[in-house]
């Protein structure tokens, strides 16, 4: 410390020292500044992170991936439905991931792409939404929340993050639905599906979707769409969770194992 104190008074070195942080501080800078991640010791992480282990057959860093999520808006609010499987390469890492994030009692978000990417940035968003409430004495609107998230994500564009999110919630006394992804897209819409199984989910969802659906019909449409995606997409599976979002809050409607759903839908076909 003594040397440090002397060097501080030398103008050329002092400037450098005031910016100096230990490697430990730089590696975990996100513990004090949650939007800042430590920089890699190489350029262009999109290409070069993969190159670090491509020369070594033994080393495979498989992040948890793969999903089917969907959300649509109808006369009774928004339905969000998700599967629960996480895969790292060919291996099913977990069959019990909670892919709907409960941001507060008005807002919900779904999680697709890199599991760690999504959960970390949702945690940051949750804290931003709570800070907004404390500063402004009112709940944050969905438009504002998605804009905050989008700004953060956009600042990390082209650095290799992988996320696809659907956010739903009460906004100016109505319910709305947003899609965000790691390319920086932010759009409002009526029907979205994200993830490796989305192509299968869209097939069922688009053919059954209409604005006038009753609540029960909407839940069943979401559930059935995810079920068919888990059936055809190897990267989707586990349990199907259905949430209902209204302007005064959200509800968890059902959590059902894919095997139970399969048996039920097979029995219906035979009738």
């Amino acid at each position, binding site marked *: 410390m003594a040397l440090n104190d002397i060097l501080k008074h030398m103008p050329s070195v002092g400037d450098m020292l005031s910016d100096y942080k230990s490697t430990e501080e730089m590696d975990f800078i996100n513990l004090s500044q949650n939007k800042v991640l430590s920089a890699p010791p190489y350029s262009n992480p999109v290409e070069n992170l993969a190159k670090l282990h491509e020369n070594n057959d033994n080393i495979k860093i498989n992040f*948890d991936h793969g999903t089917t999520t969907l959300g649509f808006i109808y006369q009774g609010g928004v339905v969000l439905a998700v599967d629960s499987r996480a895969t790292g390469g060919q291996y099913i890492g977990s069959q019990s991931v909670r892919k709907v994030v409960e941001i507060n009692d008005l807002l919900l978000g779904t999680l697709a792409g890199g599991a*760690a990417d999504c959960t970390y940035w949702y945690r940051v968003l949750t804290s931003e939404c709570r800070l907004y409430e404390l500063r402004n004495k009112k709940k944050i609107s969905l438009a504002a929340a998605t804009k905050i998230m989008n700004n953060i994500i956009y600042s990390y564009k082209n650095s290799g993050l992988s996320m696809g999110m659907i956010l739903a919630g009460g906004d100016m006394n109505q319910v709305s639905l947003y899609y965000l992804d790691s390319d920086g897209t932010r759009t409002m819409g009526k029907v979205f599906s994200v993830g490796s199984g989305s192509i299968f989910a869209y097939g069922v969802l688009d053919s059954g979707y209409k604005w006038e659906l009753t609540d029960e019909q909407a839940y069943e449409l979401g559930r059935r769409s995810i079920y068919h995606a888990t059936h055809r997409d190897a990267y989707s599976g586990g349990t199907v969770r259905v949430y209902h979002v209204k302007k005064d809050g959200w509800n968890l409607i059902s959590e059902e194992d894919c095997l139970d759903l399969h048996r039920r839908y097979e029995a219906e076909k035979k009738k």
Partner: protein
Amino acid sequence: MLGINQFPEYQVPGAVQHQFNPYENNGGSIVAIAGDNFAVIGADTRLSAGYNIFTRNHSKLFQLTSSAVLASCGNWCDSDTLTSILQTRVRQYSDTHENKEISLNAIAQLLSTMMYGRRFFPYYVSNILAGIYEGKGYVYSYDPIGHCERHTYRAGGSSSALLQPILDNQIGLKNMEEKPTIPLTVDRAVKLVTDTFISAAERDIYTGDGVKISIITENGVEERQIPLRKD
């Protein structure tokens, strides 16, 4: 990254190529089971690289508090760095909170955030955290960039794909029409962990030599060591 590939005229036989290879796989397997009022966590004691065995008595368990033990395997130097920094932070917490121990769920979140901080240059490790919180047993598992999930049982490391199905069958009772009702006691959990490692040592070259098991109860942490095949 700037490499020999950008300079084709230098790609001749005999040219020495240097590359940045920060990762190595040192193998090892870890297993944890959570019960109603206890948690059991085990790790094998072999440290290897490629076809070489470096050490047969090498602990992959790190006791963080009187009710939390972390198991970490993969790239040993990454495990070593990550766990020592985590241990420092755990100590800092108790020093700044009048010797109050950090809770298990706080460690779980701290570890996740620390691992995600290195999102663009990850620690190549497989971590499982086990312990008790408010009298109940918990197990948390991680992917290399800090995705954290709570489980009741979990296998990680080089033979995770061999060990996890045994646990799914014996504890998760997955896909059974008639589920047997065998209570999960400390004894049964320890026996299961031992058995899974015996099975893994039979088929995985990176697992063997011995198992270190930590049993976490309200009375603290008890350590046991059980020998395995040494070939």
